């Protein structure tokens, strides 16, 4: 069963948010979503300096089988993107909560987010 990390918050669209309030929030997609997508071969991320809006699409993730939109789980300015994951999207499958992170946002407002427990119980993940 796909792993859900307890310290993170999650959106209904399967993005995780790492925010402790001290700096930009890290954002990625959950192992549940990565497993469902299959082997990821392409990722399109928002540009550094652009503003993303919670609940709106800000990129896409393409696997061998399908394409999914990436939804911003928070509102704010993108301050950094993970260049490694752009050149090697398989990192999202192998380490979705670590090396497979996608981008960081200086958050002005969070969208509706779930706790790890709530996300896991809704999506069949394992804490």
């Amino acid at each position: 069963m796909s792993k859900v990390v307890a310290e993170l918050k999650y959106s209904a669209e399967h993005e995780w948010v790492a925010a402790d309030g001290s700096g930009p929030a890290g954002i990625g997609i959950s192992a549940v979503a990565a497993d469902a997508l299959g082997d990821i071969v392409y990722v399109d991320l928002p540009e550094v300096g652009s503003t993303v809006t919670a609940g709106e699409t800000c990129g896409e993730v393409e696997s061998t089988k399908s394409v999914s939109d990436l939804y911003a789980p928070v509102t704010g300015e993108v301050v950094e993107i993970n260049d490694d994951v752009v050149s090697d999207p398989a990192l999202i499958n192998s380490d979705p909560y670590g090396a497979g992170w996608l981008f960081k946002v200086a958050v002005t407002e969070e969208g509706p987010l779930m706790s790890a427990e709530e996300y896991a119980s809704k999506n069949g993940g394992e804490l």
Partner: protein
Amino acid sequence: MSENYTALYEQHKKAGASFTDFGGWQMPLKYESELAEHHAVRNAAGLFDLSHMGEVWVTGPDAAAFLDYALAGKLSAVAVGKAKYSLICQEDGGIIDDLISYRRGEDKYLVVPNAGNAAVVAAALAERAVSGKEGGFDVTVEDVSAETSLIAVQGPNAEAILLTLVPAEQHVLVTELKYYAAVEVRITVNGTDHDLLLARTGYTGEDGFEIYVPNEDAAGLWEALLETGAGHGLIPAGLACRDSLRLEAGMPLYGNELSREGNPYAAGLGPVVSLAKESDFIGKVALSELKAAGAGSTTGRKLVGLKGPGRRAGRGHYPVLKDGNVVGEVTSGQPSPTLGYPVAMAYVDIEFTEPGTALDIDLRGKAEPFEVVALPFYKRQK
């Protein structure tokens, strides 16, 4: 939609498969990584559960004549022991299904339709047996799909793996078995002998075998193949890699490239239709007219291969563009794991089907360049 489970469902669950609905069946989509499974089939071997496919026996004195009437190909010309890829068409030439027929005797054929079409094909055959001639054809049509499992071993190591389960005196039956031929061989599972129908056919573009086995013996055979195959790099392989493998090999998938609305000529399957056979057959008039009108050669749309230089792939139903105008539609597409670039099959207006023609695929609002190429994308080294 009805939920059917193959006799190997528990094996798949145990192996950690994710499942998908396909043709009304819960089938393994992948076990761990569909890319790893794809590469295993190209470089070593993969084990597939294809028990969702249909199996329909057509037997009786009129079997050959009946299939000549019911299908688009000339099945009477198939030698006993050989198989033939064919189509079952409507009167208007539309494709009801593509299928493989194995001639198992003078008066005996095993017809294998796709999962989602098995019941429709069995019913159409039964109906055509009655309505096809005065008094009906002297044949029996028996749908044994529900009690028959189908296991495929595909990849360059398939033969070596098979041989480990076949007694030495029958090895020659396996090693001499030609592509698109089938033979009964003795396969030993846990000390018990089973005489099973072994076919050298597949849907991956690699060498490989398909084994027809009664449901009650399927799990034992599956486990035995996994165990003996492990040393040859065999891993279980799901429908996701089956789709990427067949796409690279340029093989059509019913529902994507083939449909009742399409026709064999546009799909590049003109040679499968035997207009020359002496007997009448269902669809003959319409197919003759389509061919005479130049379907797929001078008029209409034709199925082509497309390849792109980027990383983003065209997917089913994406528009194909020439100078911003829609000139076609993608039927299947994805990044090719073997070739490393995106490939697609698409129906395209006939004037844009020459290999080398530059076209675009509308990838969710952005036109990405692709080029028409000859099919298949991938051909194995022999």
